[in-house]
Each structure stands twice: as C-alpha cells, then as structure tokens.
C-alpha cells in the first residue's frame, strides 16, 4: 500500500476545506481546523494499478503565513497550493507559503489550484502573471469547489507526480 502525505496550503478562506469536502473521506469535524490548526482527510486515487492513499493535511489558512505551523509540513510528499481567484492577495500568500515550505522541506511536487473559477466576474488574477508562473514550471489548475470542476483530476495528477518523483 502506498500512502502520501499531502498538505493543503493557502490563505484564509480560499476554499481549501470546501474544495476537498465533497471529494474526500472525512472523520474529523472542521472545528479541528480552528483549534489544532489542521484537519486530516483521506483520498484514495488509482495510479495505474496501484491504490494511492492521499492523507490530506488541511492546514488552517491564515493571511499571515508566519503563524502557519511549519511542523505540520514535515514529511509531505506534495502540496496543493490553493488560491482564491477573486482575491489577488491570496496568490502572493501562496507564493510566500511555498517559499517557506520549500525552505523547510525541500522541493516536492505541487499544484497551484486557482479556486472559485466559477466567479469569473470578480476574477482578480492577472493572466500575464499566471503565464509567468507557468513559464517557471508551475502547474496551474482552475477549479471550482462549487461545481466540483477539475477537483478529482487535480488530486489524481498530484498523486501521479508524487509516485513518479
């Protein structure tokens, strides 16, 4: 059996929790997020013939990343870096979080998740900047926790990259 620890990182209210809520197996209530600062969920995906258990550490988002407990990131095999597409500041936050994480843990596969893709009217992210990130080798996915668009695929892609890395 293969398991991978995956951290869900992102600023406050970017939709990490609702992003996974419909797609994961959960046994803890959301109150852990505000008390302990993390909530563990589980998602099993199939990579080829192998079942890969993703143990998702949904880390409580704060807009001051200094407060994020870096000890929670230890042993992660990958990240989902979640950004609220309607709040530009959350992208900067994500960038800072990733830098902090990589400083702590080294480089591991990650996917930048641009959430709330259904709210196109209030979209704030600059496409040029996103293009630059992609050019840097970042993988960008647009998702909507509301419609569920691309969520499953994102998990699967991250699993695939973690297993092959």
């Amino acid at each position, binding site marked *: *059996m*293969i*398991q*991978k*620890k995956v951290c869900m990182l992102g600023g406050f209210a970017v939709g990490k929790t609702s992003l996974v809520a419909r797609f994961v*197996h*959960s*046994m*803890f209530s959301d109150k*852990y997020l505000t008390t*302990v*600062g*993390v*909530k*563990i*969920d*589980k998602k099993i995906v199939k990579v080829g013939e192998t079942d*890969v*258990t993703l*143990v998702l*550490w949904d880390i409580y988002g704060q807009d001051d990343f200094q407060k994020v*407990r870096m*000890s*929670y990131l*230890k*042993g*992660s*095999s990958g990240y989902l870096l979640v950004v609220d597409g309607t709040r530009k500041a959350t992208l900067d936050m994500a960038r800072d979080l990733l830098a902090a994480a990589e400083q702590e843990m080294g480089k591991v596969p990650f996917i930048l998740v641009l959430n709330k893709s259904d709210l196109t009217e209030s979209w704030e992210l600059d496409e040029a900047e996103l293009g630059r990130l992609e050019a840097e080798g970042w993988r960008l996915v647009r998702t909507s926790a509301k419609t569920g668009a691309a969520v499953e695929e994102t998990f699967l892609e991250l699993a695939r990259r973690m297993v092959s890395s």
Partner: protein
Amino acid sequence: MTDSPAEQPLPEASSEGNSPTADDGLEELRQLVVGPVREQIQALSESLEDPGRQARSVSRVLPEAIALRSRDAALSEAIAPSVEKSIGTLVRRNPKPIADALFPVMGPAIRKAIAHALASMVESLNRTLEHSLSFKALRWRIEGWRTGKSFSEVVLVHTLLYRVEQLFLIHRDSGLVIHHLTAPSVAALDADMVSGMLTAIRDFARDSFRVGEDESYEALKLTGLDVWIEQGPHAILAAVVRGHAPAEFRHVLESAVESVHLQFAEGLEKFDGDTRGLEPAGAIIEGCFEARYAESTGRSSLPGARLFFAAIAAGLLIAGFFWIRDRVRWNRYLERIRAEPGIVVVSTGKEGGQHVVTGLRDPLASDPASLIQGTGLAADDVRGRWELYQALNPTFVRRRAEKLLRPPASVKLGLDGRTLSVAGVAPDVWIADSRKVAILLPGVEAYQDRDLESADWLDLKAGVDSLSVRFVKGSTHPVPGQQATLEKIFEYARRLDERTDPRGRQVLLHIFGHTDSEGSPDRNLPLSRARAEWMRDLLAARNYRHLQTATEGLGSSSPLTSGTGEEINQLNRRVSFRVEAVGTPR
C-alpha cells in the same frame, strides 16, 4: 555462458581454417600445436550443444551453487515465482502429499489457535458469570439498559484494569501509518486519518508548549482512555489503552520501538509512504497487546463457589416460598374448620409430609374433608383424626332434637336455654313419645309442650260436636232410621270413656235436649230435658266405666237452624253433645 573465455578461440580457429593461403606445413604445425586443444574445444562445444550432457554437468555443481548463494536474497527471489507455480500446480494436481507434509506443522498450529480462542472465550464467560449474580451486576445491568450497552460491555468497562485496544506504528515525519493493529472486538477506526491527526496533535502540543524534539515519552490522556506514544528516530508507536496501564507498559513499548528500528532501519529511513517490506514489523508491535482485568486471575474458583451459593440461595428461596405458601394454605384450612360449629381442633402436626389434625367432631357437623376445597391444599395433603362427640351449642341441640323427634310439619321446636319447647298440633302418639325422649337429649334439661295441642283430641271434640239425634214431634222417641247415628254416638262415647283430655283431666260429656220452636216453653223445656235424659239412659245402659255425662234441657232456645216450617222443626227436635274436661290437670 556466452561470456566464458573458452569460447573465444573457436571463431578464430574456424576463420583461419577457411583461409585460402594456408599451406600443408603450417597446417601440420597447427595440428601439432593446437590439435589437442581443438579436439577439446570440439568436445566442449558438443557437450554445450547437447542438453543432456549439459544437464548432467550442471547437476553436478547445482547443490554447491545453491549452497553458495543461500545467504543471498536474490536467489530466493529468483526461484520464488517458480516454486510458487510448482506448489500451485502440485496442489491442483494432487493436494494429498502437500497436506500430508503440512499436517505435522498445521496440526499444532491449529490446535494452538483453537486453544487460544477457547481460552479467551472461557475467560470472558467466567468474567460475565462472576458478575452476573450480584448486586453490582444488577447495577451494571441497569447501567447497560440506561446506556444501551450490552451487559458484557458494561462488565468489561468496570472490570478492565487496562487493555491495549489499538496500536499504530506511525512514520515520524509524515504521520503516515506504517502499521495499524486492533485488539479483537475493538471497532477499527480509519487508521490513516487517526494516525495523521495523532501526529498533528502531537506536533501541536509540542509546538504549543515548547517541548524538546527528543522528549522521549508522551501520552494523551482522556477519560478512561490513554494514548501512549513511544517515539523512535523514524517511527512512533502509539498505543490506545483503555484503562490505566502500569508504568512497566512503557518498557514493552520501548523495546518494540527498538526492535522495529533495529530490524527495519533502512526501510524506515527511506520510507516514502510505501509500506511494502515493512509488514513484518506488525509481528513485533503485536507483542504490545496486553490486557489485565480486575478480580479475575487467582480467584478463578470463586465464580464456581458463588454460583454454588447462589444456587443454594435460590433453592432456599424457592423452598421458602413453597413452605410459606403451604403454611398459609394450612392456616387457612385450620381457620375454616375451627370456625365450623361442632368441630373442635385439639392438636395439629405433620407426619410423613402430610398435615395431621386431631380433634372432636359432632356427627351433625360438616365433614372436615369437605372443607379442604378452596384452601389450595389437596385432599392428600391432610389427614384428619376425629373423635365423635355431641356438641351442646343451641344449634346442635336443636338440630339433634329435630333429627331424633322428627316433629310433624304442624309442630314448631324452640330452645330457650336448656328448655326444649314445642308448639302446634301433633298426634297423641308423637306427643307421648316426645315427652319421654326429649328429656334424654344432650343439652336438653326441660321439655315444654304446653302450647302443643292433641290432634286426636281436637278430632274427637269436633266429631262429638257434630253428632245429633232427631226426635218425633212432641215425644222422646227418636225418628226411626237413626241406628247408624246411634252407633256412631256409642263409638265416640267409648273413645271418650277410654281417655282423658291431653292434660289428664276427666272427660264430661254434656247432652243437650232441644225442641222445635212450636209450643210453649213450659212444655218444651221438660220435653227437651226428657229427650236429654233418654239419651243419657241409653248411654248409661252401655256401662262405660269412666265416662261421666251431664244432661240439660234447652227447650227451643238453641235451635240448630233458625226459621219455620216442618223441615226446620224436624232438624231442631234433637239432642246434641259437647265434650268438656273437668277436674284438675295431672
């Protein structure tokens, strides 16, 4: 094989053999120099191409070759698939040899497993039995009913000192679960998430309270549940313990963590979420499952003893119930027969399982045996020993009098104190007999029949009253044809002569002479007197011994029928009779 140096000269030799520039001398020289080698090579080559010879030569070195590589896992891995396949084929084709070969191994293993299963079953049964017959158990049953848990669960909670319910071997950095074991009958949680959360909480606690990274032991304490955490360099062993394990349990965890790190050092260090290769670690941590129960070991004889005493108590309770019930029924019966008139209970007791009652019984009282019905006792349960006696209470005296005297319907018996009184009308015979007998009745001291009239006497009187003899007008000669009437008068006279009145007084027969209303009283009165005297003389002629008579002439003053006419006059010319008792009663 193709890399073997022995093969290299072969193509060289053959290419030279094909050279068109070779001469005989050179050929000879070559023959001399390389001939034997060539033959050898030829032979070797043939042997290599002949599978039979090859097999033979390999078979000579195979055992040594295998022995040489036996310490190397590569050989085992290489032949494992073939061996697997062979065994599979063998089992499909004929499983018996395999079964025979495995039997000595499997037999004890199965026996051990069964013995283990039985032992734990007996242990839990003992525990349940031990607690199923006590006040504590009653309380626990109520608790179970209240909380919706089964009785055995409640017993377990209360008697458990501690029990290791779950073991998690967790990768220290990632919090990923390497191994998760649960004790029997413990609901398994999702180990992946629990393990992650456990790690997170541990990190959280350490960060929050600034505990050093190498703080060697930790525990999470909840009500009734502890999580013991033993930390190694790469893996953490977390034991979920219900109840409170002793401090020594820490050593068990420590040595398990040490063993795991010793045996799987490399696997743990390079752990990337793939648990393959780490499965045997489960066998090591399994040794940490422990359980202790209160009041169970060393007192194993107690449940039996308790059961025995409980059985005795239950027996006594049942016997007591039946005894009390029998007692209640017996008392009910005794009360009933004591209340019955004419029955006197002298003593009660028990003989051979039967109730015995002795006493006195009036023959006229109810049958004591008939009073059993309705008390709950069976007829067989009671033996009565009754002596007959005569009860002197008024009911029985009267009942006995009635039985003995058999009074006619016209007679009423009465009892006033010890005096039996009779009233009404009865034949002389009954009156006479009763007088003799009544006084002999137990409980009767006096007999009173003053209000009793003699039916015979009344008949006699009435008969006499109805007699009359008619006379010829103006004379003392009776009208002819009255012989039968006269006979009847004589018969009555005879009966009167033979008796007294019921009180023993003498009988006086009045004879009244009458005339019709014609004629003057001066004539009629003497005529009527003469008629009465005629009748008296007629009776006197018959010589009655005791009968006394009195005559009186009433003239026409007391006619039988009033009116006029010869027919009526004829009826009134007569003598009539009346009986009177005279003198003092005897």
